[in-house]
């Protein structure tokens, strides 16, 4: 039973981190990218390939993983978001990010193959069980990421600019904020964080090309449950979803995970559309 709880929280950490990544991109662009989950997938596969196949040292693999995340973050802003944000039809970004996400996923499946492959150990550890790092890495990292982001928003100039843009991007631009560059930066940051979450969660999820869509969906549910724009919400939402998934898998079998998850989402959005910690203005998505 303890194992069920621990694995649920670990999953929750992963989902929470994905929700945080959504938040970072949303703050500067008001876009919820379909490709959010793909950062983790790319980061995870990149690391697995470099470390296991090419025998790079782990720290090098981590750096490469983060770089790959940054690159894809930057690319997704340039390709899928920048031109759309300027266009009059707001909902095109749903399609453009969906398209890019599909392309990335398919490209990975063609290059890497469709079998999930194991992920290297990050810290030397011989034993498994509830203290297995595959559970604790995502959990700890999720909390660190949330705390780090909050400090970033409150203390750093760039972070404060992100917040300003999320509240009123027109006003921000009028005050001289280089909104394009800020947006690009936020996507790069999102990519790095996403890849990092893939690195942390890799031992739990394996390096799998299909991870992106599943994680994007779960991360979104965590985001919606917690409320867009809230780091605490992201963690809480992730934890709730993670626990629910783990308990469902334990009692009803793994096939019903998605059904329960989407049921939770629909229920919550009907009852409290802004999520647990979100503000009501969220509905103007």
């Amino acid at each position, binding site marked *: 039973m303890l194992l069920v709880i621990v694995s649920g929280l670990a999953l929750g950490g992963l989902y929470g981190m994905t929700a945080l990544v959504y938040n970072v991109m949303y703050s500067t662009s008001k876009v*919820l990218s379909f490709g959010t989950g793909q950062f983790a997938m790319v980061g995870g596969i990149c690391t697995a390939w470099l470390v296991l196949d090419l025998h790079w040292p782990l720290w090098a693999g981590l750096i490469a993983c983060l770089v790959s995340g940054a690159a894809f973050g930057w690319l997704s802003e340039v*390709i*899928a978001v920048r*031109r*759309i944000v300027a*266009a009059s*039809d*707001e*909902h*095109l970004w*749903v*399609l*453009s990010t*969906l*398209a*890019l*996400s*599909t*392309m990335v996923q*398919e*490209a990975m499946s*063609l290059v890497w193959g469709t079998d999930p492959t194991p992920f290297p150990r990050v810290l030397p550890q011989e034993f498994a069980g509830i203290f297995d790092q595959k559970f604790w890495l995502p959990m700890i990292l999720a909390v660190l990421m949330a705390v780090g982001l909050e400090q970033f928003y409150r203390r750093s100039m760039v972070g404060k600019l992100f917040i300003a843009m999320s509240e009123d991007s027109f006003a921000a631009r009028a005050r001289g904020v280089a909104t394009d560059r800020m947006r690009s930066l936020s996507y790069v940051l999102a990519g790095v964080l996403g890849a990092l979450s893939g690195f942390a969660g890799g031992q739990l999820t394996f390096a799998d090309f299909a991870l992106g*869509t*599943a994680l994007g*969906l779960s991360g*979104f549910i965590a985001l*919606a449950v917690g409320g867009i724009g809230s780091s605490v919400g992201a963690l809480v939402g992730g934890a709730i979803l993670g626990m629910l998934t783990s308990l469902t898998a334990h009692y009803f*079998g793994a*096939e*019903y995970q*998605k*059904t329960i*998850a*989407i049921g939770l*989402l*629909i229920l919550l*959005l*009907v009852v409290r*559309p802004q999520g647990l910690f979100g503000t009501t203005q969220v*509905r*103007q*998505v």
Partner: protein
Amino acid sequence: MTHTRIKPVVVGLFALLAVALPWMTGNVYYLHVATLIGVYWVLIATLNLLVGFTGQLSVGHVGLLAIGAYAFCLLAGGQGWNPFLALLAGGAICAVIGLLLGLPSLRLPGFYFAMATLAFGLIVSELALAEQWLTNGSVGMPAPSFPAPFDTPGGFYWLVLGIAGLVTWMTANLARLMWGRAMVALRDSTVAASSVAVPIYRTKLIVFVFSGFTAGIAGGLYATSQTYITPDAFIVNLGIYFFVAIIIGGRGVIIGPFIGAAVLAAIPELVGPLAKYGTFFYGLILLIVVLVLPGGFGELIATLAAKLRREPQSATSIEPDLPSLRNAVRGQKA
């Protein structure tokens, strides 16, 4: 709705060619592809109402296709129902499921709705594999065929053609009468729509349920055309493909999505060894169309047609005609 008013002559010619196809080619394979286009067209025609007209980005319609297919196979095959009845029943089941899915999710903003439908598609494919007692899991099940004269490739083609024609006719009617304008208003400007009293939520729901019904019917036809269905056939990517077909063809145009359906059905069959790159290329095409041609090819055609008609670009000076305005306004006061 002026977008592209197709001359009846063109429609007639096309219909004639379509009907004559089985006699023009003896090749069963081409007939099969044409049948598949028809089947996809049944689904895409009404999905186009949902996506192209009311602007609801439903990514998971493949789930309804799957449910329709399995329902048809179970009822007509296992339970021995009359295939036509089973087809209608499949449609009805999907209409109800569409209602249940749409009721909560159509209240949500665009991205949430898209996610919800995506999740629905994933759930259906997950359950199709898991619920072995119902679906035989990954083994799949055979699809029954229709009674004569629809049990031959040519005969079945005509059945699909007939249904596709009927659905097309219905969507064309909806598009050109007042409901069509209401739907477009809903897509382009909810403020305008509510200011003229269009019931926004109710309209979205009706369209969603209608598209669910035809998706269910398309599912049954799809099953028969493939003769055997497995969960593999209904992966989420197919849902994205339908979507792409509509976007490529162009929003709000009847013929555009047909082009999309034709491309969708024909390419995998004709491209063979490159088929595994299919999804990648669909993503690429979608991306390019969204970035360059948001209105899709249908809009491109309409714009070209407008340029060709060479409308005089004179600045309009507005000269009201007060007496006729008086009459026109007064005419209402019955």
